[in-house]
């Protein structure tokens, strides 16, 4: 058992993972967090739930993890004044999660130093909280300022002319930290960018070309995913989970299925688990290929972009041929998988793996020997291992900064317990390191795919589709997606309906590190550094 504390009784979650859960009071929170932190553990996720109907109060949930396992702590908070002590001093990664939890549920981190809003962008009033069960959506909505009359030519009235006419309109202000000094100025970038990418605002404080500080503002793609889950059935929820962040659809769907299966106490058929691993590795390969191409493009080597994207496209087309969907959406459902693999499909994947192995090795040689490219990569956007450990950098970017953590290795659930995954790590923490880790993981994933194909059990599957979960259940699932660990937590009410689903993206932990990675770099290197992390906006905006 990973944590010992006199006031904490842990019970094992019936789960594929070494996971425990236990209830504590807010007073013990600091002590336990400190203990886990000092023992080398870190915070994976933090969310809240409105349990006023069941237990007369709100709840705060934290997932802490160390080498021996993971623990989900449930902190009971009062219904009138839901408050808990701020833990961002212990786990800096908690800061944005705490602010988001306040925006959505109104539970407040006491003594915290940063209480700025995070996900609320002026779409609903500051006193109303969407994830509370008594939330009135219609009454809380803030109307947009009046749209300009149509057919008036190209002149659009300036915000000053229309802005304060509607008394309900609340201008979206956000207190960015200002850097003062001779010659310091700001560049606001986004949320609308000149390329077709997700929206996010970046505020650079620079002197000349040197970046003194970068502050991110995210939340522009807040879609109310968590609220939407509450009114969905289990299988509908699987569909939504697969769309939290489209590039990680397999990881999310699997984590969701794992959480649901943990509540139901069932184990999917063996063959289904092997197929899930196959899908997950295919997702990893496709994304790494895409990123490696983009990284070439960001140093203006379009050759790299087109070569890697030809390969990625081949993978996507094979996905469509073999599994029926280019990005493998809706192939994993609670209880099993909706696909099967015939002999022909097996051959296609085998041929593809051989082809990729050969082609990527060739391209890696070109990337490694291109002096201009390596000059841009090496030393750019460095995150020292010490800082990475302190701030809880995870996933692929973490492994490039010597954070040797991969859920497929540490918490190898079936079928990874039979696959002996070789973790790719590197110490330098710069763009070059993140490129190297991508190449290494790509080759490892190709090897894993071949091994999965060889070991894939041919038992007749007994299709087992979960339709309904037991009442008052709680389960978590965690899967190492291509970007990092994806966690999904499911709470059910007395009838077994979904009452709260929290999908957690590794981007929550890694976005703040991007701010650190660009310090002292030059402005034109930011896109390259950003792409080397390639974090999800949608996954953290929810």
């Amino acid at each position: 058992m990973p944590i010992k504390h006199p006031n904490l009784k842990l019970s094992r979650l019936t789960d594929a993972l070494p996971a425990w859960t236990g209830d504590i009071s807010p007073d013990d929170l600091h002590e336990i967090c400190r203990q886990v932190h000092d023992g080398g553990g870190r915070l994976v996720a933090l969310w809240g739930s409105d349990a006023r109907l069941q237990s007369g109060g709100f709840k705060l949930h934290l997932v802490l993890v160390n080498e021996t396992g993971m623990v989900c702590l449930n902190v009971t908070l009062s219904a009138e004044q839901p408050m808990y002590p701020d833990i961002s001093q212990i786990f800096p990664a908690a800061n944005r999660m705490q602010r988001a939890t306040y925006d959505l549920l109104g539970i407040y981190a006491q003594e915290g130093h940063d209480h700025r809003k995070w996900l609320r962008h002026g779409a609903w009033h500051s006193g109303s909280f969407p994830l509370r069960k008594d939330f009135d959506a219609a009454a809380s909505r803030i109307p947009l300022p009046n749209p300009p009359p149509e057919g008036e030519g190209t002149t659009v009235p300036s915000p000053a002319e229309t802005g304060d006419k509607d008394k309900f309109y609340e201008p979206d202000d956000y207190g960015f930290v200002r850097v003062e000094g001779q010659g310091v100025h700001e560049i606001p970038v986004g949320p609308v960018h000149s390329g077709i990418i997700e929206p996010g605002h970046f505020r650079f404080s620079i002197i000349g070309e040197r970046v003194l500080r970068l502050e991110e503002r995210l939340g522009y793609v807040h879609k109310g995913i968590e609220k939407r889950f509450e009114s969905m059935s289990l299988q509908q929820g699987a569909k939504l989970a697969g769309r939290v962040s489209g590039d990680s659809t397999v990881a999310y769907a699997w984590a969701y299925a794992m959480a649901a299966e943990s509540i139901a106490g069932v184990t999917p058929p063996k063959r289904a688990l092997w197929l899930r691993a196959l899908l997950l590795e295919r997702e990893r390969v496709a994304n790494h290929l895409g990123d490696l191409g983009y990284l070439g493009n960001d140093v203006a080597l379009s050759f790299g972009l087109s070569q890697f994207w030809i390969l990625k496209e081949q993978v996507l087309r094979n996905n469509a041929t073999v599994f029926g969907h280019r990005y493998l959406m809706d192939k994993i459902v609670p209880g099993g998988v909706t696909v099967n693999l015939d002999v022909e499909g097996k051959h296609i994947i085998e041929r593809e793996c051989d082809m990729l192995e050969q082609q990527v090795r060739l391209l890696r040689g070109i990337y490694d020997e291109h002096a201009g490219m390596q000059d841009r990569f090496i030393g750019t956007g460095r995150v020292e291992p010490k800082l990475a450990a302190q701030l809880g950098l995870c996933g692929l970017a973490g492994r490039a900064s010597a954070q040797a953590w991969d859920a497929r290795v540490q918490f190898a659930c079936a079928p990874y317990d039979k696959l002996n995954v070789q973790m790719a790590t590197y110490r330098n923490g710069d763009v070059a390191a993140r490129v190297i880790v991508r190449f290494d993981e790509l080759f490892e994933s190709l090897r894993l795919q071949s091994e999965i194909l060889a070991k894939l059990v041919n038992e007749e599957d007994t299709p087992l589709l979960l339709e309904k979960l037991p009442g008052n259940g709680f389960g978590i699932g965690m899967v190492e997606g291509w970007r990092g660990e994806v966690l999904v937590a499911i709470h059910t009410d007395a009838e077994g309906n979904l009452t709260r689903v929290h999908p957690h993206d590794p981007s929550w932990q890694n976005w703040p590190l991007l701010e650190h990675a660009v310090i002292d770099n030059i402005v034109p290197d930011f896109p390259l550094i950003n792409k080397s992390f390639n974090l999800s906006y949608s996954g953290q905006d929810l």
Partner: protein
Amino acid sequence: MEYLNLILAILFQLAQLLLVVLLAPLLTGWVNQCQAWLQNRSGAGVLQPYRVLRKLFQKDAVIAYNASPLFRVTPYIVFGCMWLAAAIIPIIAVDLPFSQAADVIALVGVFAVARVFLALAAMDIGTAFGSLGARREMLVSFLAEPALLMVFFTASMISHSTQMPRIVDALAHHQFMLYPSLAFAALAFVIVLLAENARIPVDNPTTHLELTMIHEAMILEYSARHLALIEWASSLKLFAYISIGIALFLPHGIVAVGNWAGLPLAIAFLLLKMLAAGAGLAVFEAISAKLRIFRAPEFLGTAFLLAVLGLLIHFLLGA
């Protein structure tokens, strides 16, 4: 007879003016098409720049509230400057009326005027990207300009004139001779050409990453006809630069005014050289990565050094 010569010269001049303004987008299209082929793409075809221009001219312009008249006139000035520059350079014939009026130093000045207006217009509306781009453009150009002048001086030393037609005449129409000094100048010129035309490795003309842009950052706020003029001017600039390169280093085939018989051959030569230069540019861009911006001064420093070496060699060897 005098009158006839003058009329002929004016006709030649008009022919060249029309030719450059119509052909310049074709060159850009050709470079883009070559790049597409080198990247395993089918490409949009060599006529794409014309389609883009037609599209842009049909659109309504969106202009920032706080834009001053400077912002509006800049596209016309930049276009005018580039067209003028292209008119000065002997592209198909020497001894054009315009080229008598301005020498190579004035040519550098014409380019500088366009750049100053573009930089001012970029800062005029006060967006962060505009001033960012203007600042970087100045960083690049204040290093590129001296190198360009040095290249011209080397050529002028050989031909004892700063007049473009004289230089071409001396290099093309006298006895054939190899000039080692010009080889150095040519290398320097290629570097300047890449930097001044916002090409890889100094800038990336196709990037969508606003934080890395130089030239594109300056023109982010332009739209419709203004953008069309600036794009067209960029094509003209590339055309003009390649023409300068041809005039200085590969002038064989440029005819004297009045030589009607040589004209078709001159045009054919021009097209051939342009095709080769465009393809060469595309190959170089395909295999290069963009430099970190603070490496650009080193890159342009190399150009200056090469141009000075060219001059020195001319003094030492007299060739």
